[in-house]
């Protein structure tokens, strides 16, 4: 072990980094961006889950519970009619509502049983949990008044169900994401290799048109991506038993669109990297922020306002939403929300195809 030789290596590495400003910027900038984003996301005063309170009880206890809920800080509860609540539940405007029946006070006084109906939208386990918690907390106040009552809510789910768990929620999103990110990285690296080994220059000096190169790449990688999509889908549904009430062909269609978008995003972004190393750097820049903001882990409806706006322009948001619409809610092409999701993903596909083809300059100089 010769310390001078070790030092030579260390020094050379640091010298190299000094030249590679981009890597340095990434090394010291990306963690701040990602952590900052995460901090803002979790502490930025995002919206709490929205819920409805339907009070059919004219006696005192119903309105006591309702007002306790409405003043709760963990949910944004508001009174509404049952019909209203049902519509809002279906449109996703509220994550659930609690129904206090007309005999609510009577039940408490005679049977010492608190039995509200809790209706949950159910597609987002985190939100459902918040609502059930807030509802049960609001009855603590009631228990103080009536004393010794039994809390027995009847919970029903619009989507999913009591066995619907976090994997079911994440699984729907990840089926698309795994394919999207892997295909993106592989295409970007393959295209950079084409540059690095000089074969791209050769192709550029041939009668090939830009569009032909892009299309050829797209088809080649799409074949791989489709096989991968099918594999991921089969594994998720058959082995992991991820909750799915939708049409498998629709899931595959959306996955395929994401794969095509990923191929072209890879081609497009590889134009902005000189080495494979730099291509891999797109992961923290392009992929991690999307993971945080596309509603994969944190529901968009509970993000701080400005981030919600940002999430709404990320194409991945719509892809994730689309997959959940299909798998959790059983959406088909007649649903306007799914039409929007597929439309946005399709539009994004076209955009990156065009971007890839135009950026691939005939003149490399």
């Amino acid at each position, binding site marked *: 072990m010769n310390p001078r030789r070790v030092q030579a290596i260390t020094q050379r590495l640091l010298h190299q980094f000094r030249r590679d400003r981009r890597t340095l910027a990434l090394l010291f900038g990306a963690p701040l961006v990602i952590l900052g984003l995460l901090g803002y996301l979790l502490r930025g005063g995002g919206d709490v889950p929205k819920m409805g309170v339907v009070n059919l009880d004219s006696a005192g206890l119903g309105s006591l519970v309702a007002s306790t809920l409405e003043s709760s800080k963990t949910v944004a509860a508001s009174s509404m009619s049952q019909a209203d609540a049902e519509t809002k539940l279906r449109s996703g405007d509220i994550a659930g509502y609690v129904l206090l029946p007309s005999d609510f006070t009577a039940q408490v006084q005679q049977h010492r049983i608190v039995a509200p109906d809790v209706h949950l939208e159910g597609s987002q386990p985190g939100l459902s949990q918040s609502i059930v918690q807030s509802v049960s907390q609001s009855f603590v106040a009631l228990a103080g008044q009536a004393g010794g009552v039994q809390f027995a809510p009847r919970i029903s789910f619009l989507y999913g169900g009591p066995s619907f768990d976090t994997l079911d929620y994440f699984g729907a999103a990840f089926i698309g994401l795994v394919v999207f990110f892997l295909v993106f990285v592989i295409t970007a690296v393959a295209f950079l290799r084409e540059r690095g*080994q*000089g*074969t791209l*220059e*050769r192709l550029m*000096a*041939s009668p*090939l*048109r830009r569009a032909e190169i892009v299309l050829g790449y797209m088809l080649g990688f799409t074949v791989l991506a489709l096989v991968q999509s099918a594999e991921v889908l089969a594994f998720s549904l058959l082995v992991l038993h991820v909750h799915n009430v939708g049409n498998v062909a629709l899931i595959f269609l959306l996955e395929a669109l994401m794969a095509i978008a990923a191929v072209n995003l890879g081609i497009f972004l590889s134009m902005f990297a000189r080495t494979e190393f730099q291509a891999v750097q797109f992961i923290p820049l392009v992929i991690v922020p999307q993971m945080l903001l596309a509603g994969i882990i944190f529901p968009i409806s509970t993000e701080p306002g400005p981030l919600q706006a940002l999430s709404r322009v990320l194409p991945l948001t719509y892809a994730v939403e689309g997959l959940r619409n299909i798998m959790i809610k059983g959406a088909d092409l007649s649903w306007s929300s799914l039409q929007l999701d597929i439309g946005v993903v399709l539009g994004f596909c076209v955009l990156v195809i065009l971007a890839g083809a135009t950026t691939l300059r005939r003149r490399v*100089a």
Partner: protein
Amino acid sequence: MAAEAYAVDVEGVVKQFGKQRALDGVTLRVRRGEVYGLLGPNGAGKTTLIRSLVGLVAPEAGTVSVLGQRMPQLEVLAHIGYMTQQAALYPDLSAEENVHFFGAIYGRVDGVRDALEVVDLWDRRKSVVSTLSGGMRTRCSLACALVHKPDLLLLDEPTVGVDPQLRVQLWDRFRKMAAGGTTIVVSSHVMDEAERCDRLGLIRFGKLLAEGTVAQIKAKAGVDRLEDAFLKLSEAAPA
């Protein structure tokens, strides 16, 4: 292709990379069937000139015509074979698969066997490129440039890193192709190769210093050895 007298017609071409003037008003013509050598030291502008012939470099001034067509022109590229300085191949494909791929791009897969035989790689055609020696890769790269039987062959330092024996072999091939009507523009900084060209262009600092047959260039410099002629003519030129 129209029967133009010149396969390559470059007129006052200027190309700037930042502050560096890679081509500084180059004018040269190459006749059909001629072997034209671009001779000059590293960084003289040889590669930039060759790349401008296939439209990979867009000149700031001047015109480039190849096979009678103003460049850049996609159709003309089908008749040009371009061998880059670095052996540009797919390392995970076999020699034959590489040549076949480029053949397919030009719609001439029928030329695969010929091209591989010309460079003596037919026996090694099944070998994956990453397992080939440097010289074999160079030959494979040449085969890729030949597969579509181009009218104009552009070779950017094709014999760098090639042993003397193989170099002689390759030059025999080049001469044979030229005899068959192929125009060849080849860059080099090796003087003994230059002797095998029909005409030479001496290039330095992006300028064409002298042009002519080997004998003409020697006579112009008034020396017997091409190497001396090159040195003398470069010194005489304003940098």
